[in-house]
């Protein structure tokens, strides 16, 4: 295969990107070994790689992962139920929507995670604080996307429903809801991502729970390779989570 043909292939840039990242990591390794980067500040990438197994086995990563996942699950469940519920309510009563939609949008742009000390006081230093933080952080996008989806239901579908003399509840379940489902899924996906970010963040901040706490603990023990490895692990988990939710969303989205 000639170089030109290779360059035309779709995977070539991706491969090159990967090679560059690996090369950058190798460069950092070399710079540390020759002493240009202080190894007490940045541990050797090879050391980080080697400490992965230790962190996974000794620090109970599977249990922590499971704990964070459970917190994310409860937060997602809460924000789906309340977010979609409030969204339906705002759509059903137009005046309510007119009155409060800007508030919800403002709430979405507010740094809600800063309320964590307040939640600590209310719910204690427990998983409840973390779940509630995730819930509050992810609520606004679910509400906004639900309202958006319901409001953009095609007129013709609603007219079909009316011509069949559907009752208001039938109209909701048979027409509005299915039509708004893709938008609602986008909202829940966004909410879930916000929830996960905040859950891991708050775990780190209050030194309690799953993966976030692990980073805090290793950093406080001054276990540098372990800290870096744990950070890499959390990033890996988050990235995997985004890829899975993205695939799921694409799979659920009806083909127009």
């Amino acid at each position, binding site marked *: 295969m000639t170089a030109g043909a290779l360059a035309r292939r779709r995977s070539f840039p991706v491969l090159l990107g990967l090679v560059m990242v690996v090369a950058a990591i190798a460069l950092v390794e070399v710079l540390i070994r020759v002493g240009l980067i202080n190894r007490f*500040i940045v541990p050797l990438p090879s050391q980080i790689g080697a400490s992965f197994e230790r962190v996974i086995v000794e620090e109970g990563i599977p249990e922590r992962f499971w704990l964070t996942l459970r917190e994310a699950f409860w937060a997602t469940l809460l924000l789906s139920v309340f977010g979609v519920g409030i969204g339906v309510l705002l759509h059903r009563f137009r005046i309510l929507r007119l*009155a409060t939609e800007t508030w919800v949008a*403002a709430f979405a742009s507010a*740094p809600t995670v800063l309320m964590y*000390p307040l939640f600590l006081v*209310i719910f204690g230093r427990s998983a409840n604080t973390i779940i509630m933080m995730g819930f509050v952080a992810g609520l606004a996008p679910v509400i906004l996307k639900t309202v958006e989806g319901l409001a953009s239901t095609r007129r013709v579908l609603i007219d079909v429903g009316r011509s069949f003399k559907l009752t208001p509840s039938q109209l909701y379940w048979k027409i509005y809801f299915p039509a708004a489902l893709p938008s609602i899924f986008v909202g829940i996906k966004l909410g879930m991502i916000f929830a996960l970010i905040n859950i891991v963040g708050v775990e780190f901040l209050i030194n309690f729970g799953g993966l976030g706490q692990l980073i805090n603990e290793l950093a406080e023990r001054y276990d540098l390779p372990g800290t870096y490895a744990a950070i890499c692990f959390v990033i890996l988990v988050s*990235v995997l989570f985004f890829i899975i939710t993205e695939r799921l969303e694409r799979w659920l989205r009806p083909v127009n």
Partner: protein
Amino acid sequence: MAETGQLTHPALAMPAVSRVTVLRVAILATILVVWEAVAASGLLFRDVVPSLWVIGRAVANLLVENDFYWHLGVTAGEIGIGLVIGGTAGLVVGIVLGGSRFLSRAFEHYLYYLGPTPKIIFFPVMIMWFGVGPGSKVAMGTISCFFPIALSVAAGMRQIDDVLIRVGRSFRANTWQMVTKIYLPAMRAPIVNGVRLGLGVAIIGTLLAETKLSNRGVGFLIINSYSTFNMPRMYSLLIVVFVLSIGVNTLVSRLGNLDAVKTR
């Protein structure tokens, strides 16, 4: 004229206060009354839900306190520097990635997936690199706002009208001229949107870092009021921070809308 054939309706008599406003006031009043009732009933710990008067007094005290403005200045400075560094880096990376399909395919998915990861977990590393002072908070602000700005600019680059780029090329504009005369003016809306998103996460990143380890800044004040269990002060700090950040967010998005109107 298009309007000439139209029927003109007599102007409807508008009530002095619209129903929406009435509802808004009613909702707010209900929330405040319920809050006050809970505070007075003692169902929850009194300090957790303090009376509105106590919170109001705490807000007033905070706003006349000189120290608060010093801490606010520290935080604003950290966020500002973080936004300048992260924003500039994001702009450059966004223009480079958005301008080249090859580079975009090679690197953009890393940004796309790293963007939504929780940035606060990098804080221990930032402390190691930049110390426990404001440096590590600036770094948190920087890495927080870099991703949304870079991604927004990269997407904006791809939406620039080809005609504009061809005009620039036909005038033999060099790279610097292309960036300043074509790319940046054409991308005003996505840049403003990126800055709006970036500013939001920079505020969060910096303040969270301050709550974790710091002896100055508004984040420090919040966690300090938690440590001393001064709930009215915590509420007042949260209210002020929320109002300020929502205000700044609205201001920046207005800026974006103004641009949209101008370019129409």
